[in-house]
């Protein structure tokens, strides 16, 4: 099992951060890179989406989103009762793990491309749809039986008009309307440069993650264990679901990766607004400091390996 070379940029970022190098990606460039990645992923999905009948996609989307709701609903009691966390912290972390990571998905897709494994193009639709339900479940879990008021209007605005959903859905729509021929003049910018931009983005993520890794000791062994066991369990769920839905092996690996990944861009902002009493250091530390590196280095190759075993049995 070899890993995708682009993840080495993440490692370089982590090393630079731990060594207190003066390397710093300016905030404006980071913003530009993330806009590029979100748009490119949306466009790619939109072009592929045109190849599938939308009606059948509706059914599988409902199943994929419905089953994904199990993730925060299982994570919450585990964190609350096994981990003895406060209701707000457990709910916030559950929301992070129920939501998805766009960059983890991108790394999985490039991993599959590198190994010449085919996958369905409409996976991007699931990426978009899986981003927000868990955030709402998280807020409901945090609020069940408590009197605290929720800024729902702000939460919804943040979730649906925040840049990640806006750009993903926007790119998806533009790609779908334009089709492969219409999008061809943009190919060089959005598709050919994608991997290079992903490398820059991972470098910056390594820098940010290094500051989280440095204080891993403070999270306690329970949370570290959770941040590794939870994604593997969720990935297994995703693989079996992928097989049950008749997806290709590559498609099942992507569903597994989506289920396994934890959000660290949309979820932190949404939880900070809706569940402010939760400690953001715990949830971001677990998702970005542990789960993200675990997924890109070990998780994705592992999910592929498991997919081969599961599919060989059919």
């Amino acid at each position, binding site marked *: 099992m070899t890993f995708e070379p682009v993840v080495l940029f993440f490692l370089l970022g982590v090393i630079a951060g731990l060594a207190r190098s003066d390397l710093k990606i300016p905030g404006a460039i980071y913003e530009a890179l993330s806009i590029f990645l979100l748009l490119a992923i949306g466009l790619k999905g939109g072009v592929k989406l045109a190849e599938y009948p939308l009606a059948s996609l509706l059914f599988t989307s409902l199943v994929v989103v419905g089953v994904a709701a199990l993730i925060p609903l299982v994570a919450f009691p585990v964190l609350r009762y096994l981990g003895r966390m406060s209701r707000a912290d457990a709910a916030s972390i559950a929301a992070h793990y129920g939501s998805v990571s766009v960059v983890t998905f991108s790394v999985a897709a490039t991993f599959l491309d590198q190994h010449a494994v085919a996958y369905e193009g409409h996976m991007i639709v699931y990426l978009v749809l899986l981003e927000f339900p868990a955030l709402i479940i998280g807020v409901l879990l945090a609020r069940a039986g408590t009197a605290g008021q929720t800024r729902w209007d702000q939460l919804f605005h943040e979730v649906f008009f925040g840049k990640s959903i806006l750009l993903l859905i926007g790119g998806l729509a533009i790609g779908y309307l334009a089709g492969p021929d219409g999008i061809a003049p943009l190919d060089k910018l959005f598709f050919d440069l994608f991997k290079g931009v992903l490398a820059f983005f991972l470098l910056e993520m390594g820098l940010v993650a290094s500051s989280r890794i440095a204080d891993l000791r403070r999270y306690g062994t329970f949370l570290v264990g959770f941040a590794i066991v939870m994604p593997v369990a969720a990935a297994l769920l995703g693989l079996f679901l992928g097989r049950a839905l008749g997806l290709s092996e590559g498609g099942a690996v992507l569903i597994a990766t989506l289920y396994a990944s934890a959000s660290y861009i949309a979820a*932190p902002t949404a939880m*900070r607004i809706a569940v402010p009493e939760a400690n*953001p250091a715990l949830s971001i530390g677990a998702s970005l400091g542990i789960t993200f590196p675990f997924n890109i280095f070990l998780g994705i190759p592992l999910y592929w390996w498991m997919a081969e075993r599961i599919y060989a049995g059919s």
Partner: protein
Amino acid sequence: MAMANSLQLVIVTESVIENTIIEEILALGAKGFTVSEARGLGTHGMRSGRWTVGGNVRIEVIGDADLCERIVATLQEKYDADYGLLMYTFPVNLRN
């Protein structure tokens, strides 16, 4: 519009609630405000400004003592418990 006894109120808080705070300030009667991004260390931990959720903002409002008092009281009641929030005032001489 030189005003005697003006105060500058500086609010340092988390960038996730920037828009909410600005709405509060305007609703309480402020005529304007200035926002800049900020980095630093406080009791809510290091705010490096590297990450969307980890950023801080510094909001400045100029007004009379009464306005500043209303803003401080409102923000303290609603946001002090859950968010990083630092507020201070000093006298200013408005020159135009």
